[in-house]
């Protein structure tokens, strides 16, 4: 049974991983869906502008890395409770967030965002590069959506298991 500090931290983790799932869900469904349907130059320029702002957004950094901090703390504390179902669930939930969101973002999305930012929207090759970026970026963004969603569900379930 999860109590005290772990219970509070788990509630925070449900909220935080759920929010981050929604953040990426927005891009997987409406954000990228819309920009890919727009004329390519407008889509490319919009995504470049969104990436420029997102990189500097303190609220987004807090959401992304603050959530990571909570999941790491819970995962470390769960190591002492791996004989309980809740400990196992929380370890999996933390690993999912760290690998499926943080590692994936830093290793895959950020380098591609930087490369996209360097494109000149007016040069003809940029359109093809944008189309390829948008298709692949979105596919991996689905992973970034499902991973924290599953984390949120596991944290919620762990509140109620022994």
């Amino acid at each position, binding site marked *: 049974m999860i109590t005290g500090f772990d219970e509070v931290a788990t509630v925070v983790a449900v*909220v935080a991983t759920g929010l981050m*799932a929604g*953040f990426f*869900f927005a891009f997987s469904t*409406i*954000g990228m869906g819309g*920009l890919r349907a*727009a004329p390519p130059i407008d889509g490319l320029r919009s995504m470049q502008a*969104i990436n420029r702002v997102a990189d500097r957004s303190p609220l987004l950094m807090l959401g992304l890395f603050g959530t990571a901090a909570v999941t790491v703390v819970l995962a470390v504390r769960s190591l002492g409770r791996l004989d309980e179902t809740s400990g196992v669930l929380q370890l999996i939930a933390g690993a999912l967030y760290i690998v499926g969101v943080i590692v994936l973002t830093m290793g895959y999305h950020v380098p591609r965002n930087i490369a996209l930012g360097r494109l000149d929207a007016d040069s003809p090759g940029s359109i093809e590069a944008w189309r390829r970026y948008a298709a692949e970026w979105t596919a991996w963004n689905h992973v970034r959506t499902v991973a924290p969603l599953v984390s*949120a569900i596991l944290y919620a379930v762990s509140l109620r298991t022994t």
Partner: protein
Amino acid sequence: MSARRAVTAASAVTVGVTTGVLFSFAVGVMPGLHDLPDDEFITAFQHIDDAITNPLFTVVAFTGGAVALVAATVMERRDMRSPRFVLNAAASLLYIAGVVVVTMAGNVPKNDRLGKIDVATSTLAQLAAARSAFEGSWNTLNVVRTVAGVAALALVAVAATIRPRLKENTS
């Protein structure tokens, strides 16, 4: 895990996802589009708005959160003075008024008005006017929805940790 607890947990996750969508517009999408000139801003938003009609989004994000919250509240009705009932009821009201109604009465009509602008045939002045009638007030409404969603989320998350006072029906 009992049905009541499962539904409360499900509404916490669903409302979290929806609020995260609003959050992404508040901190990512709209500040990014703000840097674009009027014609590109309007074109980009029009296409994003077309994608909002994606049924996965409207069903899961807006309806799902409201249905889960109301279901969680109704399931606590046998003990209406319990913290679980009060928190779930408050979260439902906040979510329905602050997210669903604000969206339907505020953001959607603005989306529809902006959607009617034909970027190709409008003058620069018409585009500037359409954007200024849209952007600032849309963003304000979106902050309202995001804050209401976070508040509803906090209430339902706390409710999820409270053990029911009455014995569960074991049937």
